[in-house]
């Protein structure tokens, strides 16, 4: 065990080519999926948090349901749509990083929506009331609301990124964990462990844990700033 850990550290320090490739694919997938999820989820979250309309509760329930969507079910869905018998087979996206990003977006956008909606709903009435009291217009009020949500937006992004980087079920199904192409940290750990190659698995585990630690420290620092 100790020898494997030491060897793993050596592998990280030597910038092993395969390890670097896995890290590159992981970064591409996690960064892109979390950014797209934020771009989609943010306006929806703000809209649901500020507006009251018939059917809003239904949308919130639907979003909560999607939040609980098992990654393997999401993977299965994308597999069926893009495989040889699926309606989108001509796009030839199966076993590419693109489809992994798409599956991740479906999985993490509901998390972005839910977190933004609950925060916005908690501050929007007071922001609106105060802005109205000063006679400020709709644009200025919206700007003030966004300013109030700034730390929350960063916090939600980090949460989405953390979820994306740690996901394994959907990405292994639609990406196929192909070496030098679609293998990400989580799928590679699984793969190398099954093969009995603990060294690379441990190296990846160390990196994954370090990233997770950094992200969580970031989130907790932001939450401390957020607390009034």
């Amino acid at each position: 065990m100790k020898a494997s850990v030491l060897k793993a550290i050596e592998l990280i320090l030597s910038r092993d080519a395969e390890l670097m490739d896995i890290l590159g694919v992981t970064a591409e997938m996690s960064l892109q999926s979390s950014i797209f999820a934020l771009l989609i989820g943010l306006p929806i979250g703000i809209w649901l948090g500020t507006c009251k309309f018939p059917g809003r509760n239904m949308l919130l329930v639907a979003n909560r349901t999607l939040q609980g969507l098992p990654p393997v079910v999401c993977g299965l869905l994308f597999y069926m749509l893009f495989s040889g018998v699926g309606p989108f087979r001509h796009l030839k996206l199966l076993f590419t990083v693109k489809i992994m990003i798409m599956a991740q977006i479906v999985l993490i956008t509901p998390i972005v929506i839910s977190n933004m909606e609950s925060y916005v709903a908690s501050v929007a009435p007071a922001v609106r009331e105060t802005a109205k009291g000063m006679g400020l217009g709709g644009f200025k009020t919206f700007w003030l609301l966004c300013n109030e949500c700034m730390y929350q937006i960063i916090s939600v992004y980090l949460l989405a990124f953390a979820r994306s980087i740690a996901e394994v079920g959907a990405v292994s199904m639609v990406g196929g964990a192909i070496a030098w192409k679609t293998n990400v940290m989580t799928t590679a750990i699984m793969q190398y462990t099954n093969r009995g190659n603990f060294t690379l698995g441990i190296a990846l585990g160390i990196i994954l844990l370090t990233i997770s630690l950094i992200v969580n420290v970031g989130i907790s620092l932001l939450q401390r700033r957020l607390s009034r």
Partner: protein
Amino acid sequence: MNISSFSKTYDKTTVLNFSGMELQSGKIYAVIGAIGSGKSTFAKILAGVVKADRKGNYLDANSVGYMPQKNFAFRMSTKANILLNGRDEQRAEKLMDAIQIRHLESKRADRLSGGETARMALARLMMKHYDVAILDEPTAAMDMETTLLSEKLITEYVRESGCAMIMVTHSLQQARRIADEVLYFHKGKLLESGSKEQVLFAPVMAETKQFLEFYGL
């Protein structure tokens, strides 16, 4: 200026039924009444924050300023918060001096205490001159010293701007100190109104007498 009649119903219960009145510029109207009498709903409807049963504008004033009961401090400095309601930095500094929060101008406003936030919100509202200014319990979170300081600022503001000020207050002493007119709300209705001498010291309605006696006036 006129306030036209309106009503407000929540879940089939009418919480406010207002029959209308005239407002005079340069006067302070203290709105008093027990908890749940409709004072804050009255203020919120006039400010346009809450909609009455029938849509419309019930206050025929060109500009209306409103300071809510729960003051919100935006995540920026105290001075930046005040400057949200006007760009005149000199006026902002003068108001901060008057209400003794100048030393907090660079401090993040969302980290201020309740009393400091209330003072900041009062200064923020006073950055502009309005035809009608509505304050909902502006000094509820303040101690006696800052309450008296705020009252002085409020009376100076009314004199300077010539606005009609509607101030919801739970303090009869405060109404006695600074109001010109008093509006007594009882169970969602304006039961009695008139000069403070008349309403506070020679009330006509039995409910008003009972309320004033209960609060020791």
